[in-house]
């Protein structure tokens, strides 16, 4: 079944986080928060995340969006491939995302009332009021040494500008487009390639990097599925996903 181009365009404006955009996609469709609605909005969500990484948005921010995307892809894969076995860990992640979204929805709705009441009828306290003339009341702790120590501690604790270097490193790892291109190349060269093999072939180093890598590969793969370039077949015996060049390319768009 070819994917229909979504009629639910992500509204302009920034979203506070992955749950914000996710909830907005579900609410646009007037759906309840559950696995079915989550599967339904997955493609739009991924399109949004893709547009995020194209923007000059902080990579730190984007990584939060990608983490949620990973769970969404699990949900989507489950709905596309009914015999897909999920690990306990994966199932928990799905339940957890649903729960978080429900909490977020409650807060989001409550926050509308907060916004409408905030600063409307302020109960003032007389903070600025001072009785009688000030009386000079020093304290033995006021010494040059103490004051100097104090100010040095304060300067140490003051928030620093975000360091730029680590961001660039992460950026290299999670450029979705790069991975899509590489995936397309790989498919053209080989008829069959296992997803696990693919995600490993990028030779990511430590565990965290690896995790992000798998997520991004998965994302990229799903994107290709949507564009009708490849088929995703679940082979039960290996518990892995095989990717084949789609025999019939029915849609050039």
């Amino acid at each position, binding site marked *: 079944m070819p994917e229909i181009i979504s009629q639910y365009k992500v509204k302009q404006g920034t979203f506070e986080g992955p749950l914000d955009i996710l909830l907005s996609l579900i609410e646009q469709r007037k759906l309840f928060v559950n696995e079915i609605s989550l599967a339904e909005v997955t493609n739009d969500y991924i399109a949004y995340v893709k547009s995020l990484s194209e923007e000059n948005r902080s990579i730190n921010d984007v990584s939060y969006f990608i983490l949620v995307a990973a769970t969404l892809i699990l949900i989507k894969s489950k709905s596309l491939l009914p015999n897909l076995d999920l690990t306990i860990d994966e199932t928990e992640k799905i339940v*957890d995302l649903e729960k978080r979204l429900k909490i977020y929805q409650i807060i989001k709705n409550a926050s509308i009332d907060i916004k409408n009441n905030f600063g409307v009828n302020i109960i003032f306290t007389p903070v600025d009021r001072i009785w009688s003339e000030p009386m000079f009341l020093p304290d033995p702790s006021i010494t040059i040494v103490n004051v100097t120590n104090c100010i040095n501690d304060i300067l140490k604790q003051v928030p620093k500008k975000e360091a730029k270097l680590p961001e660039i490193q992460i950026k290299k790892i999670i450029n979705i487009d790069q991975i899509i291109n590489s995936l397309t190349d790989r498919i053209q060269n080989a008829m069959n390639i296992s997803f696990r093999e693919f995600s490993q072939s990028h030779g990511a180093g430590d565990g965290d990097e690896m995790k992000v890598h798998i997520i991004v590969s998965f994302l990229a793969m799903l994107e290709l599925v949507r564009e009708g370039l490849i088929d995703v077949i679940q082979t039960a015996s290996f518990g892995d996903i095989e990717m084949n060049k789609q025999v019939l390319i029915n849609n050039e768009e």
Partner: protein
Amino acid sequence: MAIELESKIEGLLFYKGEDVTIKKLAEFLAVSEASIEDALNKLDHSLLARGLVLVRKDDKVVLGITGELSPLIEKIRKEEINKELSKASLETLSIVLYKNGIGRSEIDYIRGVNSSFILRNLLVRGLIEKIVDSKDSRKILYRPTFGALSYMGITSIKELPNYEQVSLSLTDVINQNENND
């Protein structure tokens, strides 16, 4: 005729002009905390339809000017009042208001993003404050300040819009998952 306890409290809070703990009131007035609680209820009642209100939060009270006079006070105030709340601040403040005592990791979990920058912002604006978790002294919790209640024009957390309902549904959702485990 001896002056009533509630009038003494009124005078004391009037003098202080800032929040005072129930414990401190009991100490100053040499009565039990229970008597203070009792007198506070009377004071609260006697302030109805007056220019002043009693704001209560946790174990503290403060005397404030009724929200109906807000436009008047704003007019005579020298400093400007920042009523702006960004989307992120609003979201985070709402969580802290309805959960009244929540750690940063839980806030991050609910929002799905890192909240440290926003939390600092709310601290600076005096809308939330840090406290040490009574159950775990290593853990820092955030809760709303008197300032937050003031901005909302309410005299207690329970007066938050749909407080009961929102708290209940939050608890429901949170427990729901635990049953699934």
